[in-house]
């Protein structure tokens, strides 16, 4: 066997396929990755520290900036945490609206995930398709609150009521959604090259996924049927009928397919929510100054990239004593160290793409 030298190559922090300022230090033996070390923290803003000097409502906009592709997921997670700590019940309509917006955001984010997954593998066109489809969701957000990316919809005690024209747009979108997913299945999922690039690549076993505390679609792709919405419901998720899609092999292809199927399920949830949504107010009566009692709360929601959990320690003042954010990306990244060695350099990109991390959420 010919002996060869390894080269160490820096991928990022500015690199087309790291989706932000993520840096990997990969050792390559020819094309084979022998070791990879991920370096995060380029986008660390000290959110947890910032929270300690902000009042509870003031922190809501910060959660937008946590995961810029799924702002509402982090928003809703946060306001639900504070509400649970304060013991506030919000009106039915607000709960339904939260579910609708949460699932819309999930679809929007998974569209980006699917698109960038494809573009990282060299297929640019599906990415643009995804963007065009996502545009419709962003338009709906814009109708409601004016923002598109960092939307900041929910408040402690309720959510903004969307305008009249939101509902026909939503209905049309949900009706078109299966068509969009079919289109995706046609252009990417069914593509021979895409399958060759992703099937059997970067297999994350069930045991390893559990040991690594991985959550979200990545966990489900490894065959664990676990979804907080289903198994430990929060809000009104126990009222909806939906499937938890899981993969079998835990490879990149499964991770991709699980996301596509989650979009379908989200569409189902939205349809049910649209059917059942009652009329009424969307805000509960909450004191102007939010002052939760002394105590601690750990609340998790099924975020887009993994479970988003907030651990809030309150000392009875208007500001949290300690606020801990647990995002999916930061913990899911650890998978790279365990899975990537032995795969080709191009597979590293494929695995990273299938992991679908968002750096602000990772670095916080």
């Amino acid at each position: 066997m010919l002996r060869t030298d390894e080269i160490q190559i820096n991928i990022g922090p500015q690199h087309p396929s790291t989706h932000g300022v993520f840096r990997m230090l990969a050792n390559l033996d020819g094309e084979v990755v022998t070791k990879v070390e991920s370096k995060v923290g380029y986008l660390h803003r000290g959110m947890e520290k910032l929270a300690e000097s902000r009042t509870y409502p003031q922190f809501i906009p910060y959660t937008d900036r946590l995961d810029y592709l799924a702002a509402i997921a982090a928003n809703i997670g946060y306001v639900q945490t504070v509400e649970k700590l304060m013991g506030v019940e919000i009106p039915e309509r607000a709960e339904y609206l939260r579910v609708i917006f949460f699932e819309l955001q999930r679809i929007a984010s998974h569209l980006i995930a699917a698109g960038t997954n494809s573009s990282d593998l060299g297929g640019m066109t599906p990415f643009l398709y995804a963007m065009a489809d996502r545009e419709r969701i962003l338009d709906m957000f814009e109708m409601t609150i004016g923002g598109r990316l960092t939307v900041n919809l929910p408040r402690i005690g309720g959510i903004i009521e969307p305008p009249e024209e939101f509902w026909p747009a939503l209905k049309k979108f949900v009706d078109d959604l299966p068509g969009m997913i079919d289109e995706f299945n046609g252009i990417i999922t069914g593509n021979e090259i895409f399958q060759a690039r992703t099937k059997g690549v970067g297999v994350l076993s069930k045991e390893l996924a559990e040991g690594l505390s991985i959550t979200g679609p990545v966990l489900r792709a490894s065959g664990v049927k676990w979804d907080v919405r289903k198994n430990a419901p929060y809000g009104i998720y126990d009222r909806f009928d939906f499937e938890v899609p899981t993969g079998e092999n835990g490879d990149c292809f499964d991770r991709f397919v699980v996301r596509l199927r989650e979009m379908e399920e989200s569409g189902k949830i939205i349809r049910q929510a649209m059917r059942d949504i009652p009329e009424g107010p969307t805000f509960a009566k909450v004191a102007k100054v939010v002052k939760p009692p002394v105590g601690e709360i750990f609340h998790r929601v099924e975020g887009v990239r993994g479970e988003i959990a907030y651990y809030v320690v309150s000392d009875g003042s208007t500001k949290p004593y300690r606020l801990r954010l647990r995002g999916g990306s930061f913990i899911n990244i650890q998978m790279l160290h365990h899975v990537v060695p032995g795969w080709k350099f191009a597979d590293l990109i494929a695995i990273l793409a299938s992991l679908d991390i968002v750096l602000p959420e990772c670095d916080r």
Partner: protein
Amino acid sequence: MENSVLLKLVEELAQKLDGEFEASLGTPVLKIKGARTTEALQAARNFSGTPCEFLHDLTAVDYPDRNEIEVVYHLTSLRGPQMIRIKAVVDRNNPVIDTAVRIWPGADFMERECFDLMGVKFNGHPDLRRILLWDDFEGHPLRKDYVTPSVEERKRLRIMQPGE
């Protein structure tokens, strides 16, 4: 109800490890000495009937008035909705605790973050370095007595020192 079983299990565990037990908003909370962490985690992982085998979150809270740092473990399960919170109390001046990496490889990053921001040292961690902040950062920002540098100071910090 499953939750009552869990509460009882945690209460028993608390007695075994001379820890305190309480239920905060329905979540069983176990407060123990830092030295007994590994035992507690292993026991919680192997609760019969309601094992909490999934390390959901690992963080720390600083209590300067008590001169304590609490390392907080949130354990959940992928089989059911159970969740427990284990708080390991360590001395604030010398926060040392055993690592959980041997039980959950996924504790790696969370412990590094905890070390980085709170200054808790994890015994036996394979690679305990700063993760979010840069290597020669001084102090641990999430501690309550950390003084945020002034804008001028931060500007100075931003300039790369020669040899970096």
